[in-house]
């Protein structure tokens, strides 16, 4: 039996993702379309030339001679990652394999033929998130999963730390409506600079849940935007469409909020945090690998900042923003975290 082989047309695409430019080559053009949502979110301008990383994404099977990673370097719900010299080898649950040579700035992603196409795409996305996080770190930037707020007329920001689902976007939206600005609702890059730490925006999009329209009527029209994942009702919305002019590209973090949600507690409770607890909050929002050299860069950046931050634990009740006075009280508390 002979197999007919049809040469597929290759597709290429390039995305500027902060200080990293991804140049991608696909042998399956539909995958490029599927990944566009992830990669086009990094639309904040970057002041310096980007470092280019070349990525090929192709169908096939991972090379048999390379052992399957066990997750010594990093383990996520989707990925197991090991380091081998300058290479990061990563393997996903459904078999998406990546070899990222950090020295050569080249990566190969091999995508299996698998019946669950949506999961395959999600796991390719996870590989690209890993690649970007490492590429940003090797450029001296620390990826922090946090939102940020800057009061009108200021250049200092308050970082808003909380796991996904606690309400960072709601918290930030409540202040954007009062004229505050933001670097983003869940992603910033940090870098030590001249004895200080600067935070820079990666994305000018926010992740809004349509239900927030109950409190913030101006977002009522977001339902027409596509859901950005099958796991959430949230829409990834360009900030300009809702709160024009309220994004900013960089700021000096001088405050930190550790945000918690109280199911049945008071509407709003605020208590100070010392520098050790502030560092604890920051470290929980940074994906720290087990490799000491890579971890040291991330931890030292967080510690350099934590020692200077005014920090507070802010507990917000489930229906806090149905009370119109909550945002004003928050605003007052946040101003106390800024010089």
């Amino acid at each position: 039996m002979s197999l007919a082989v049809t040469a597929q047309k290759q597709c290429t695409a390039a995305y500027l993702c902060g200080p990293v430019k991804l140049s991608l080559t696909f042998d399956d053009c539909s995958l490029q379309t599927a990944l566009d949502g992830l990669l086009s979110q990094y639309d904040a301008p970057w002041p310096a030339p980007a470092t280019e990383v070349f990525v090929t994404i192709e169908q096939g099977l991972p090379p048999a001679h390379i052992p399957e990673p066990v997750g010594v370097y990093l383990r996520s719900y989707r990925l197991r990652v090991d380091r081998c010299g300058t290479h990061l080898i990563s393997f996903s649950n459904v078999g998406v394999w990546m070899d990222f040579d950090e020295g050569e700035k080249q990566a190969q992603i091999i995508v299996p033929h698998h019946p669950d196409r949506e999961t395959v795409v999600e796991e390719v996305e996870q590989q690209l998130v890993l690649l970007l996080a490492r590429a940003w770190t090797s450029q001296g930037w620390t990826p922090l999963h946090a939102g940020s707020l800057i009061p009108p007329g200021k250049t200092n920001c308050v970082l808003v730390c909380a796991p996904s689902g606690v309400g960072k976007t709601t918290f930030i939206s409540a202040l954007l409506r009062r004229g505050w600005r933001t670097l983003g609702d869940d992603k910033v890059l940090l870098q030590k600079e001249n004895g200080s730490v600067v935070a820079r925006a990666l994305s000018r999009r926010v992740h809004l849940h349509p239900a927030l329209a109950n409190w913030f009527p101006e977002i009522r029209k977001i339902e027409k935007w596509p859901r950005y994942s099958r796991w959430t009702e949230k829409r990834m919305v360009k900030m300009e469409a809702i709160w024009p002019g309220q994004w900013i590209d960089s700021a000096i973090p001088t405050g930190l909020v550790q945000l918690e949600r109280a199911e049945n507690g008071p509407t709003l409770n605020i208590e100070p945090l010392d520098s050790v607890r502030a560092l604890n909050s920051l470290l929980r929002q940074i994906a720290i690998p087990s490799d000491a050299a890579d971890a040291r860069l991330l931890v030292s950046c967080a510690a350099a900042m934590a020692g200077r931050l005014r920090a507070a634990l802010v507990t917000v009740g489930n229906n806090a923003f149905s009370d119109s006075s909550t945002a004003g009280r928050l605003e007052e508390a946040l101003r106390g975290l800024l010089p």
Partner: protein
Amino acid sequence: MQSPIDNRCWMLRPDVVSTVLNDGAVILDLRSKFFFSTNPTGWAIAQMFETGTTRDAVHGACRKWGAADASIPEINALIDQMISEGLVEPVNTPAAATNGVAMATWISPTLSKHPEPLQRIMVSAFDPGLPLAE
């Protein structure tokens, strides 16, 4: 009297990362994902383990920093805690020369373990946190 084993040379494990925070430090164990905070005296002692040191060498350095003999039990308690938490491991190399850490005032050394470890399994390479169901 100490046994020779008790005065072995110990060194911070390679996957233990320390960083200065204000006037103390934070020590993160990348294997267990637990982290510890130290005061300035605890940090000065921990720094000796970066290049390898013995219990006797730590006692000697602490005396130079103003520790009285009455402080030896609390110094030993800190060393024992570092050993029992697995932050240090015995090495077959001689203790390094005492580092040049200066100490203005001697205070009891502390090493506080934070109750919750950092995430061992992450959501993604950008987001370590556990997501809540919507």
